[in-house]
């Protein structure tokens, strides 16, 4: 299954070569051009006719993770987080490290040894370490170097009614959507499928990719927070799982173009695809950087709702995933027929 392959591939920000290879292999034969730029973005191109608007589809390949910062004399590894990770989810998680994919466990002082005050506080990443079963620093150094990346080891699984669980669904689910579209679409307009790097550390890859492509429209496919759990009120849920792809009207880096939003709503209505709005204006996506590239590039974000985002066990619904593919395909077809609304 494509999503399983994408979710389980390694690719912390700045270390995207594994996931990039997976995507490149997947798309061989389906696109006209495929290249990697200086920052590591994978840029694929499906030719189209002249005088049609150039569309850039974009999803980021990178995931949040850890970086090894030192190795102590007993062979334990200290680390820093890369991208937005909640320190409280780290303890006891299994990770893989570096090119050798060496296994490790994130360890902490046992509960028996903690003072009463210590037990009340959540452990910070600086209080934690990774145990790779090494006897000593020298032993550890055979497998791990300072600067190596680590990522959650978590198998992708289907469960419940149409749900799936895995690491890095932000934004491998978006990569999956892009791949499916690039494989299937019978396009007249030129399409760039861009898999960006370093989104989680500051929307970096998209800025340079958009600069070189300079498209007429960018569609960013993301995974976004679904906080539809426990007793959270609807207006604080951000998005709700199984209620369809989410449109963003604003976030910290972005304001939507109303005409494009209206156009997409119309597309969804005419094809009976359920959509929802993202009900929070926090966070940022590649669209924020793309829309401010060069003289300004109209950009839109379509997101798959994702519970427990940035953890080893993020959850999406396959219904939302498939509807996102359908919505983007239908919208591209609409542009082919009717042009851009702006």
């Amino acid at each position, binding site marked *: 299954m494509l999503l399983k392959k994408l979710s389980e591939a390694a690719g912390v920000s700045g270390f995207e070569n594994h996931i990039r290879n997976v995507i490149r292999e997947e798309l061989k034969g389906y696109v006209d051009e495929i290249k990697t730029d200086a920052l590591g973005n994978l840029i694929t191109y499906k030719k189209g006719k002249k005088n049609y608007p150039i569309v850039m589809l974009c999803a980021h390949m990178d995931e949040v993770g850890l970086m090894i910062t030192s190795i102590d004399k007993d062979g334990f590894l200290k680390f820093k987080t890369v991208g937005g990770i909640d320190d409280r989810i780290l303890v006891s998680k299994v990770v893989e490290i570096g090119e050798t994919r060496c296994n490790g466990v994130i360890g902490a002082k046992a509960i028996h040894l903690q003072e009463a005050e210590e037990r009340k506080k959540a452990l910070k990443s600086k209080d934690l370490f990774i145990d790779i079963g090494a006897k000593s620093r020298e032993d550890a150094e055979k497998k791990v170097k300072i600067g190596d990346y680590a990522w959650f080891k978590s198998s992708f699984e289907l469960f419940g009614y149409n749900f799936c669980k895995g690491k890095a669904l932000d934004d491998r689910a978006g990569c999956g959507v892009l791949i499916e579209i690039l494989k299937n679409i019978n396009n007249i307009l030129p399409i760039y499928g861009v898999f960006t790097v370093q989104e989680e550390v500051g929307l970096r890859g998209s800025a340079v990719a958009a600069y070189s492509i300079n498209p007429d429209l960018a569609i960013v496919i993301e995974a976004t927070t679904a906080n539809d759990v426990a007793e959270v009120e*609807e*207006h*604080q849920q951000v998005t709700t799982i199984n209620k369809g792809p989410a*449109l963003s*009207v*604003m976030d910290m*880096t972005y*304001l*939507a*173009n*109303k005409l494009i*939003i209206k156009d997409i709503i119309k597309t969804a209505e005419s094809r009976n695809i359920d959509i929802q*709005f*993202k*009900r*929070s*204006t926090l966070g940022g996506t590649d669209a924020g950087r793309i*829309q*401010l590239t*060069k*003289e*300004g*590039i*109209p950009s839109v974000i379509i997101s798959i709702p994702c519970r427990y985002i940035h953890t080893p066990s993020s959850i999406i619904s396959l219904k939302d995933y498939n509807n996102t593919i359908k919505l983007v395909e239908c919208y591209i077809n609409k542009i082919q027929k009717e042009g851009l609304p*702006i």
Partner: protein
Amino acid sequence: MKQLIKKLTETYGPSGNEHNIRKKIKEEIQDYVDELRVDNLGNLIAVKKGNGKKIMVAAHMDEVGLIVTSIDEKGFLRFSKVGGVSEFYLLGQRVIFENGIIATLGTEKLESMKELKMDKMFIDIGAKDKKEAEQMISIGDQACYYREFSDLNKRIIAKALDDRIGCCVLIQTIKDIGQSSNNEIYFVFTVQEEVGLRGAKTSAFSINPDIGIAVDVTATGDTPKAKTMAVELGKGPAIKIKDNSILCHPKVRNHLIQTAEKNNIPYQLEVLEFGGTDSGAISVTKEGIPSGVISIPCRYIHTPSEMIDYDDVLNATKLLTEALISFE
């Protein structure tokens, strides 16, 4: 000029929704410029042609506001802020949407004012339920303060003086300068300044000027127990030294100071310890663009009742006009 200030400040235009205000500005200037265009993000770019320096002058059209994020069963709207809006300014306010719908702000029951957070508040458009509300408003619609312009003779109170007053200074300068400058001047009415200097970034990229000047409001230190700041209402336009977005280029700064002194225009120097302006974005565009700022001192910024001094506006216009003519 007061009629123009009234007209522009009472117009709707939060970030990303600059259609109405752009239309009004366009009407004001179209007979006075050589070229007029709107770019991808919505910036209005007006050109006065010339053979000299390429100068970009920016004032932002957008104002702070609120954006609807969800509509509940009973027809109340939840919202987020657009730009720097404080919960405390919002209590009891009326706001207006682009389609003219007027609404008020309410809050859930609070034990203390410390609990007053955006997600405890809601917009009441007087709808009886979700269905009726959805016929009036869509998610993503934005509202701005609903307030009248008040003329206190020497001083003016209005919403959105940040930065419609800058727009007014640009418009008046376009009219005053006539054919007296040899420079090629790009008057840019920018979008989305309040959410991150965005319009200035893309417009500066396309224009690629030799010099950038922004006209915007700045804070003052002249009210009871204010944060210490050596800027006062009525002491003339402020020539910016720095804020959090820019260290103004000495060439531009000194040119503004010399122009003020030569023409006996009162001015003050401004060191702002927070905030940013379009010049910040312009200055780091492409290979770097020497940039400066003329600021209009303004009290109670981002509230529905911002206050400025009318003489400062007249003097800012004079300073900008003279500076543009004399830049070589």
